[in-house]
Structure formats: C-alpha cells, structure tokens
C-alpha cells in the first residue's frame, strides 16, 4: 500500500517536472478509449537467446533490443519522419554534421535511477572499444572516420559526423542506445573490456538487468522462454495520446521454438498471439484454421514485399582462367539474367506469393525501385543470341554448348543447404539453363562454408567458386541502395567485405568506381528526389552490368489472435515496420482484449 502510494506520488512528481513522450494516435488502429490494460502477449522466437548483454549481442532478433526504449530520436512508422524521443529537442548545425540533443527529463531506468547524458557516453565508449568486440563497433565510424559523441552537460549530448550524411538520423535513432552507466561503468573501469564481456549473461539474475524500455526481464528459462514484465518507471515518461501511461501490457512471453514448423504449431494451437507465416504452406494452414474457426484472429496476407534479396553472383576475379574471363564479360551475365525465369520462381518456388526483382533495392522500397531495369528479363532466345556472340555456337554430344576452343559452357552454382527457397531458385536456373545448352551444376553446402568461399583463395591465389546464390538483408529507409560494404571495390582489407564478385581490392571495371562514387554522392544528397535519381542511376548501371543477378522476392504475411490489439494502421503494415518478435505493431501500444 505504502509502495503503491509512493509510486503514484513519484509519477505525479515526475510528470509535473517533465513532459512525457506522447505516442501519436496515428501509430495504432485503436482508439485510446478502447484500450484495456494488463495481460500478457505471447510470441515466439526461432532460437534460444544467447545473451542479455547489449555490448556483445550479435544475434537478430535479440533481447537487449526488446528491452531498450530507443535513443534520442525515433522514426515515425507511418510518415518515416524522425521525431525526438529520448531527446526533448535537437539542433543540427549548418554543415549538417553536428547534432546536439537535449535529453528528455524524468526518464528512468527500470531500477529507478535517472537516465542521463552519461548513459549515452557510456554506451559510445564501450561500443567503441575494440576489445569489447561489439557488433556495432564498425558503425562507430563512417568510411574509417569516427563519429564523435560527447557530453556537453548533464542534459546535453553532441554527436559529430565526419561529413554531412543523409543517414545520420538513422544512426542516431537506431544505433546508439543509452546504457546504464551506474551498472557498466564501474565494471569497465575496474576490469576493462573483459569485465564488460562477462556481464549480463543468460544466467544473470534478472534483478540485475537494468533496462530503459517498457519491459524488464522477469525470468529466463533457457531453451524455453523469456518472460518480460512491465517496467514501472517507463509509464512515467511514456504516455498514449490520451495520457495513459504505457505499456498497456503486464508482460510479454517470448517462447523459444526450434523451427518454423514448431512455430506454426504453436500458433495453430493457440499458444502464441503473433505470427508471420513464412511461406505459402504456413499461410494456407493459418487461413484454413481461421476459416474453420479453430483460431479467432486476423490475417494480413501479402502485406508487402520482404526487405531482403536473393541473387546470383559470379566470380569476376582478375585471374586468367577461362571461366573468370567468361564471367567477367557482361554479355555472359546478361545472357544469364535472360535465362533466369523469375516468373516461374515466383509461381513454383514462392507459390505465387512474391515478385521478380531486377535491382539490389528491395522491392519493399516501392518508391525507390527504378523502372525499366528489366531489360534482361527471361528471354531464352536473347540469351542464346548473346552466347552465340560469345562464341558458343554449337552443342557438344552431351547437349552442352562449346566454344571454338572446346570450352564447355558449364559451371557450378552454390547455395546454402539450409535454405529450401534458394535451392528451389537454383533448380529452376539449372533446368532453364539446360534447355539452351548451359550446364549448371548445383551444390548445397553449409552457410558458413559458403561465406568462407567468397574470399577463400586456392594455391593459385584464385577464389574457388564459379557462382554463388546468396542474399542480403537489412538497411534503412533513407537511402535504401546497396551499401559501401557491398559496392566498395578498393580500400578495404582482406576478406570481410561483401563486394562479392571482386575481392581483389582493386576496381576492375569502370562501373564499380562509377557505382561507389554515385553512392557517396547520394549519401550527401539531402534532397529526396535528387537522391532517388542517384539511386535510379545506380540501379541502371546494375541492371546493365548484372554484377548481381537478382532473382525474386517473397512477400510477407502477418497473423495475430483476436485478443491481440494495437497494430499499426494498415498503410504502415509492411516488412520494414514489423518486428520479428511482435509483428506489425509497437510493443508499447499493444494490448490484450478480454
């Protein structure tokens, strides 16, 4: 009784001193008046969480992200605008490099301690320490020039970028989260990086885990589930549009399941509330169960395309082997693109739920995908014509095209064994290629092994593959083209970069230099239309040169039980705004209907 009174007093006190962040009414379909508080949201994750430590976490999704409130800014899921969140306000310098954030007052950690500027500095300091091995260490600099984060005073933090950058606000909102100084700093000071690495493991007592977000850890049952409970201090500075403290939920249960089939089972059994059917089979199961009234819920099929790509990349090494020379010829890659039957891929592999792709910009960025990039779409006759030009005019006795030197048109296409979708794509490529006399062998290996192949060199200094079918994921909304790690052709050390077709650290082809130059131009271009024009240019080059032969993209589907409320407005329901764990909704605004 006493405690409750104290909490209530603290709340009024807090609210009188500082303005809470008010969640715009547009972020949910529900009216604040309908909302019921309490209840538990049950969701599912496909693997065991490995750590609670924000500095060493490298998985996705992970628990630290679920437990953090965010950072200075947040991106409005409906308008895509950046709005102050943990900052009350911010200023931007004229050269667009320096940002100064004034911290919102009254924010508290889950142990009741105030959130201060030091907490950002702590986070920045530790993430920037090489020895900690943070997953975002490399984000702390742009093109090898560090981003600087400094404390101006107790309520003010300054962030300085090396140069003007359109993605700066994305960085501010999505990368640097505050971490509790009072927990980490003493350890960091006494034991250094090693001390930090040993903190906040899965077996750490939940009481010792301090969070800024709407929830805190209640219990972690390894291999079974994570149970989160409401952070009592979060509601002091987070209110809904009607002024009600957030979150509405009492708790969240994240069940851990081994595979996608088990995930479906849990949803069909009514054991979890949110679910994204991964393919058509699962979609059909959910639909059938809903139609048969086995589950009472909502299904949004084909909500949007996925924020990921699948493509074939050839080995374009500057080695004088017959194959790399052939692959290095754009005509060959164009011919190859013309035997990729993307419609068949969508129809047969994706069950009709997807779309062909021709550029590295994920189709979910509808506004960014350039038009007229499908010049080398499926066209076997065109492919034959180009191959004839390359000297492949006659077929050998085994039906495989040979050139005048007797070289067979044959290569091995590798993809990872775990991914049936990619194997399906490879199969269609193989079968279509066979029809025109191109022999494609397929090989399905472990993902790790496949990524190793990208830079593993043999005794002759050559990379040891012909072609790999792989994909990329991730990226922001501001400039959603392939990033520098994918397109940078020089200035990178050995291995580790994603410039998959050429890892010689030299720009072999003019289009490589052209592309990277365009990219940096776009990063500095603050005008959206101009930036889109640059993206179009980049895609045109890509479509012509076919360094990555894009295949097809799946669509995403969302399902949830009828008791689960508070999803984003339909217009904002897409793969970019949906969380893997909670679906197309903001967890803080989610509530359970009883």
């Amino acid at each position, binding site marked *: 009784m006493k405690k409750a009174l104290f909490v209530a007093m603290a709340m009024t006190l807090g609210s009188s001193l500082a303005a809470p962040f008010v969640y715009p009414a547009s972020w949910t379909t529900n009216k604040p008046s309908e909302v019921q508080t309490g209840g538990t949201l049950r969701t599912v994750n496909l693997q065991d969480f490995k750590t609670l430590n924000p500095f060493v976490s490298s998985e996705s999704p992970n628990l630290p992200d679920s437990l953090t409130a965010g950072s200075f800014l947040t991106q409005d899921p409906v308008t895509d605008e950046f709005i102050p969140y943990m900052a009350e306000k911010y200023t931007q310098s004229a050269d667009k490099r320096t940002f100064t954030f004034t911290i919102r007052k009254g924010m508290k950690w889950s142990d009741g301690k105030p959130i201060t500027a030091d907490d950002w500095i702590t986070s920045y300091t530790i993430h920037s320490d090489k020895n900690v*091995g943070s997953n975002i260490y*490399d984000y702390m600099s742009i093109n090898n020039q560090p981003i600087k984060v400094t404390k101006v005073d107790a309520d003010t933090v300054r962030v300085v970028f090396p140069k003007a950058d359109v993605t700066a606000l994305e960085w501010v909102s999505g990368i640097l989260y505050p971490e509790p100084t009072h927990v980490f700093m003493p350890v960091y000071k006494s034991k250094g990086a090693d001390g930090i690495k040993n903190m906040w493991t899965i077996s750490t007592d939940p009481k010792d885990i301090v969070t800024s977000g709407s929830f805190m850890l*209640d219990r972690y049952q*390894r291999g*079974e589930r994570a149970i989160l409970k409401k952070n009592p201090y979060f509601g002091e500075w987070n209110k809904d549009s009607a002024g009600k403290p957030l979150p509405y939920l009492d708790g969240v249960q994240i*069940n851990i*399941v081994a*595979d996608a089939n088990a995930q479906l089972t849990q949803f069909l059994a009514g054991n979890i509330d949110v679910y994204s059917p991964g393919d058509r089979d699962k979609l059909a199961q959910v639909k059938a169960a809903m139609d048969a009234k086995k589950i009472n819920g909502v299904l949004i099929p084909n909500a949007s395309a996925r924020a990921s790509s699948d493509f074939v990349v050839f080995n374009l090494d500057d080695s004088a082997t017959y194959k790399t020379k052939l692959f290095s010829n754009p005509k060959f890659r164009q011919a190859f693109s013309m035997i990729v039957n993307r419609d068949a891929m969508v129809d047969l592999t994706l069950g009709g739920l997807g779309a062909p792709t021709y550029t590295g910009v994920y189709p979910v960025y509808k506004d960014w995908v350039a038009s007229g990039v499908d010049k080398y779409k499926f066209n076997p006759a065109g492919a034959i014509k180009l191959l004839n030009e390359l000297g492949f005019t006659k077929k050998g006795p085994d039906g495989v095209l040979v050139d005048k030197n007797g070289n067979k048109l044959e290569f091995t296409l590798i993809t990872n064994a775990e991914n049936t979708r990619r194997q399906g794509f490879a199969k269609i490529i193989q079968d279509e290629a066979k029809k025109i006399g191109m022999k494609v062998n397929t090989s399905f290996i472990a993902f*790790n092994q496949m990524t190793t192949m990208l*830079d593993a060199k043999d005794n002759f200094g050559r990379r040891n593959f012909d072609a790999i079918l792989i994909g990329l994921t991730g990226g922001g909304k501001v400039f959603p083209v392939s990033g520098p790690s994918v397109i940078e052709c020089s200035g990178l050390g050995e291995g580790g970069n994603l410039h998959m077709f050429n890892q010689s650290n030299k720009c072999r082809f003019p289009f490589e230099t052209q592309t990277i130059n365009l990219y940096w131009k776009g990063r500095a271009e603050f005008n959206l239309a101009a930036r889109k024009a640059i993206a179009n240019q980049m895609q045109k080059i890509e479509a012509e040169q076919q360094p990555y032969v894009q295949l097809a993209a799946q669509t995403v589907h969302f399902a949830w039980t009828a008791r689960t409320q508070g999803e984003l407005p339909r217009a904002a329901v897409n793969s970019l705004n949906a969380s893997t764990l909670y679906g197309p909704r903001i967890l803080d605004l989610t509530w359970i209907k009883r």
Partner: protein
Amino acid sequence: MLSEVSVLPYIFRRILQFIPTFLLATLLAFFIVQLAPGDFLSQLKENPSVRPETVERLRKEFGLDQPIIVQYFYWLKNFVMGNLGQSFQYKRPVNEVLPGPFMNSLILVIIGTVLHFAVSIPVGVYSAVRPYSTADKTFTFLSYIFLGIPSFFFALLVIWGMLKLQQNFGWDMPLGNKTSSKLPTDISWWRSAWDVFIHALAPTIILVLRGISSESRFIRGQLLEVLGQDYVRTARAKGVAENQVVYKHALRTALIPTIAGLGGLLPALIGGAGFIEVVFNWPGLTPLQLTALGNQDIYILQAVTAVATLLYLVGNLLSDVLLSVIDPRIRYH
C-alpha cells in the same frame, strides 16, 4: 568380500583403458571440425558493417590463429582442470552453456531408458512365454512397423495428431517444448516436474519406440533360449511354479546381453534424441550441437563430443559393473 576385491581392479583397469579412447576421440573430433572450411567468424561476413580487421582481431582473441594441435592441447589442459572453453556464440564459458541442454537431454534419456526397459521386458517376456500367440504376433507386427517409420516423420505425424486433438476437442496437448507456456510462474516443484514429464512423454515414446521394438524381440529370443536351458528344466523338476521359473530362473540370465548393451544405450539415446529434439522443440543437446555446427562453435562441439564419449565410456563401465552384479561368473573371473 571376494567380489569387491576382484571387481575394483577390473574397474580401474577399464578406466585406464578409457583414457586413450577418450583422447583419440576428442582429438579426432577437434581435427575434423577444424578441417572444415571456415570458422565461427565466417558468419560475420553476412553482416555488411563488420570490417576485416575486426574479424582478424576476434580470430586472434579466440585463439583460432594457432595451429590445431596447439589449440587441442590447450583445450585438453583446460578440460582436465574442468574448463571446457568459451562458447563463441554465447560468449560464455561452455561450462555454463552445456549443463542446461545436457540435463534436458538427460530427462529424455532417463525417462526413455526407464520406458525402454519397462515396456520391452514385459512385452519380451510375454511373447516368450506365449510364443506364436495372437498377442505375440501383434507385438511382432507392431515392432516391425515402428522399426520402419523414420522417427522424424513419425514425430511430425504425432504432433499433427495432437494438434488436431487440441483443435477439435479442446484438450490441452503438450505440443512440443519442455514446459507449458500457460502455467503461472509460481507453481510447486512437483507441478512443474509433472509439466516437464508430460511434455517429455511424446518425444520419449517416439525416441524409444524403435529401441523397444528391437529390444523386446531380442529379449523374447533370449528368454526362449534360456527357457530351454538345462537349469530351467532343473528348476521345473524341483516343482517351481512356472512364473517363478520364468522370472526367477530364466529372466535374470536372459537379460545379461540386454544389460551388456546398456553401455551403448545412453549415447545411442542421446544421439537418437537428436531428430526428435529438433522436431519436438526440446531444448536438448542436439539443437545445441546443430547450431554449434552451423556456427562452428568448436568448444561447444568439443564439449558435446567429450560428454558423448564420456557417456559412452561411463555407460560401458556401468554395464560392466551391472553385469558383474547380475552374473557371478563375471565377478569371480
């Protein structure tokens, strides 16, 4: 006691013999896993923003730049001192990561072992006492069928069946996982133990069905043979009742080969639990091993191999000791 005098050196000698086996097995495992292209850090490549020097730094930090044999001896030294090394994925000592999954697998294996014997012995005995009866023929037929269905697919069928029961009758089925997500957090230990048991039941049954099928038929054959032995005839000639003849005189010797096979049962169940743990979403050793394999988390793999090898050796030792208890001929020789 005479028996203890002769059994102890025997056990000690067995343990001495285990050492080279253990060393060879772990060394072999270490080499094989390192032979595979790539290492734990290869996956970082998927991440567009991890730089090569980061990878190199981590490689050094994990000791992956050392020659394999050096790494092995380093591992061995730590192992002897009770340190299983560091998991790359969990960024925690393997000592902390391993026990949970190990215990979970052990739950399946222990319930499985109990079930294995609790079913196969009575079935085997019944079939041997009434050979070619309808029940015997039914058991035989069922065991043939269970031996024929791939266990992972059988698991899928069972889960599907349970789901249909839950959907159509509203029965709360233990659909995968180790515990129910619906239980409140503050329940008595026996209630949660019961919950775990209920969840373990379906995977365990599928796990041991094949074993039961072959074991029960094996016991049947053994018992039939022992029932034809001279000393069983002696017992009957004494006027011993038939069920006493079966259970007291025949069964004990008939079970000797079964017990001799116990040593292989533990690792076989742990190994066999693999697919079923995956399909039933049971947080055991195999899911741990599979993700470790995918990520080349070598010290986890090494630890799992070491544990499996130890289990194999301990199992063998256990069956040796049990055999000497059940069969005095071994004890005195």
